[in-house]
């Protein structure tokens, strides 16, 4: 019987023939922690090992992205705990507060290959499945266990197959498909499963779109969404991570007779801009249905939609509106990494955004937490390209619509929730 991608990845990492439901110990290729969760890992590791040595300093990385640079003394001290530990342990892969969102930084720095098993203290680690890696968010105990002996336990999951065909209409993008999918499958629609994405829409999609798609698997309770790199994405990845990527793509792709728990097909032709309405990602409507809703703030960024292509799509909408945004909303754009920020500068976007009154920030996770600039007061309504909108997530009593970068910018232009097709005529 054929194997799915996740089965092949776990077989490679565990050295065992596996079946769905097996519990196995996998070798970890990269075990990461960030400024949130990282200090907890360090303190716990030092306690349980009595300040012992990590299993392999070259397979550990730290990223600083949730509260970067530090905005409070407690956070600053936490970040120092990580820096000191890295120095003591000889860990050199430390991407400090000037780098940006962890997973994106790891990817840009060539530390992620298809088939790698990667851990991190971020529930959206699995966006690295966008290049075929089995990356997963875990708590500090899992990280500490991996630092001790370089392995971790996993249950071999069922795999769901999703095939996406068709082309997006103007003003509609991968984020809208994702929002549609979350609405269709629900908050636990991929419960504990791996997901493989196929179809012409996926094959033609950019790395940014694949990241969006795989990051939101978390919001359907999936373990990891996997796309085997092809075309331009494959070329990009080989340049960053080396030619071993090419072997992995061949050896780890799913068998033609692999067994899937579901086989779903979608066509994005005719899909409209979609919104996750307050207060849950799976409370989904078309933007048309929700249009006109009062909003106070617009935020474009996050690990889901903070790549150059996302910001460029927002820029196109702003351009179509003659670079005018509404005075009634606060508009914040946060690139995912320094590299993305540089691309935005080179493309001339930042100048235009600033002239329009947009707040263009340094690269961070930004408004995924209430412990960051841009926090909302009670009763305020935000529009955001982040991935969760539970009540009060970015400020007690506040509400959030989750949308695409184009819908977010269209809403900034009009000052109310707006379908970008009203501007992109």
């Amino acid at each position: 019987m054929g194997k799915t991608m996740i089965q092949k990845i776990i077989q490679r990492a565990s050295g065992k023939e596996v079946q769905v439901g097996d519990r196995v110990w996998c070798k970890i290729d990269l075990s990461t922690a960030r400024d949130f969760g990282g200090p907890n890992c360090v303190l716990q590791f030092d306690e349980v090992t009595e300040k012992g040595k990590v299993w392999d300093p070259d397979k550990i990385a730290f990223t600083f992205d949730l509260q970067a640079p530090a905005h409070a003394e407690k956070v600053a001290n936490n970040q120092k705990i990580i820096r000191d530990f890295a120095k003591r342990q000889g860990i050199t892969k430390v991407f400090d507060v000037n780098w940006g969102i962890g997973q994106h930084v790891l990817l840009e720095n060539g530390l992620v290959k298809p088939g790698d098993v990667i851990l991190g203290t971020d529930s959206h680690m699995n966006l690295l499945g966008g290049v075929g890696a089995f990356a997963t968010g875990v708590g500090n105990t899992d990280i500490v266990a991996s630092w001790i002996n370089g392995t971790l336990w996993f249950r071999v999951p069922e795999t769901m197959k999703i095939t996406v065909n068709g082309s997006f209409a103007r003003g509609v993008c991968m984020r809208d498909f994702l929002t549609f999918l979350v609405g269709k499958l629900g908050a636990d629609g991929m419960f504990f499963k791996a997901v493989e994405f196929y179809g012409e829409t996926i094959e033609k999609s950019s790395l940014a779109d694949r990241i969006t798609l795989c990051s939101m698997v978390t919001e359907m309770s999936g373990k990891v969404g996997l796309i085997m790199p092809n075309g331009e994405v494959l070329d990009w990845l080989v340049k960053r991570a080396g030619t071993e990527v090419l072997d992995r793509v061949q050896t780890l792709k799913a068998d033609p007779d692999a067994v899937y728990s579901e086989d779903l097909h979608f066509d994005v032709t005719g899909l409209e801009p979609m919104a996750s309405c307050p207060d849950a990602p799976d409370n989904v409507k078309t933007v048309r249905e929700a249009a006109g809703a009062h909003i106070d703030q617009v935020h474009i960024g996050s690990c889901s939609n903070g790549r150059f292509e996302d910001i460029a799509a927002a820029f196109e909408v702003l351009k179509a509106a003659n670079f005018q945004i509404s005075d009634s909303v606060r508009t914040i754009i946060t690139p995912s990494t320094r590299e993305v920020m540089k691309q935005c500068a080179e493309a001339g976007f930042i100048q235009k955004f600033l002239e329009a009154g947009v707040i263009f920030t340094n690269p961070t996770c930004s408004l995924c937490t209430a412990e960051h600039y841009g926090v909302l007061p009670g009763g305020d309504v935000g529009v955001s390209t982040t991935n969760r909108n539970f009540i009060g997530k970015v400020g007690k009593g506040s509400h959030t619509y989750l949308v695409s970068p184009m819908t977010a910018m269209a809403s900034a232009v009009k000052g109310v929730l707006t379908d970008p097709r009203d501007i992109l005529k």
Partner: protein
Amino acid sequence: MEQNVLRGKAWVFTDDVDTDLIYHNKYLAETDPKKMAQYSFEYYPGKEKFAKEAKPGDFVVAGRNFGTGSSREHAVYCLKELGIPVVLAESFARIYYRNAINNGYPVLFVKGLSDAIKEGKVKDGDELEVNIATGEIKDLTNGNTFHGDAVTDLEKDIMASGGLIEYLKAQAAKK
């Protein structure tokens, strides 16, 4: 066997309780598990006083996908430190499930609990009796009964050791 039978009050929650509602991101910089208890459910509408009013031995009772969202282990520590002996839910989100097991913190999978909560068959303040050995759950206030399944396979072994780190130490000692 008596020590396996626990009694306490039910605190009832919906489906898809996100980690921000259990332990809000505002307090993520906290690194001492003992200090995390005070923030439990502070952002859950209607349960803001949970940390102050819940007594050790009370139960958290929830629907499907409990603990969805973030990887923060704070969301397990806070309830454990508060003395909540077990979380009863129809199902648990993936990372929350791992974090609970890895800390030796008991969870029971209770079939039909999501609907039972929606239908008012178990309510806030109900007196519950939970047998953590058999999984038998009685709502002493209204007489309704439920059955909870404990974890199996490797997870059961990790739980028996008291958590992942303890399990690894025991395994290393065997070699």
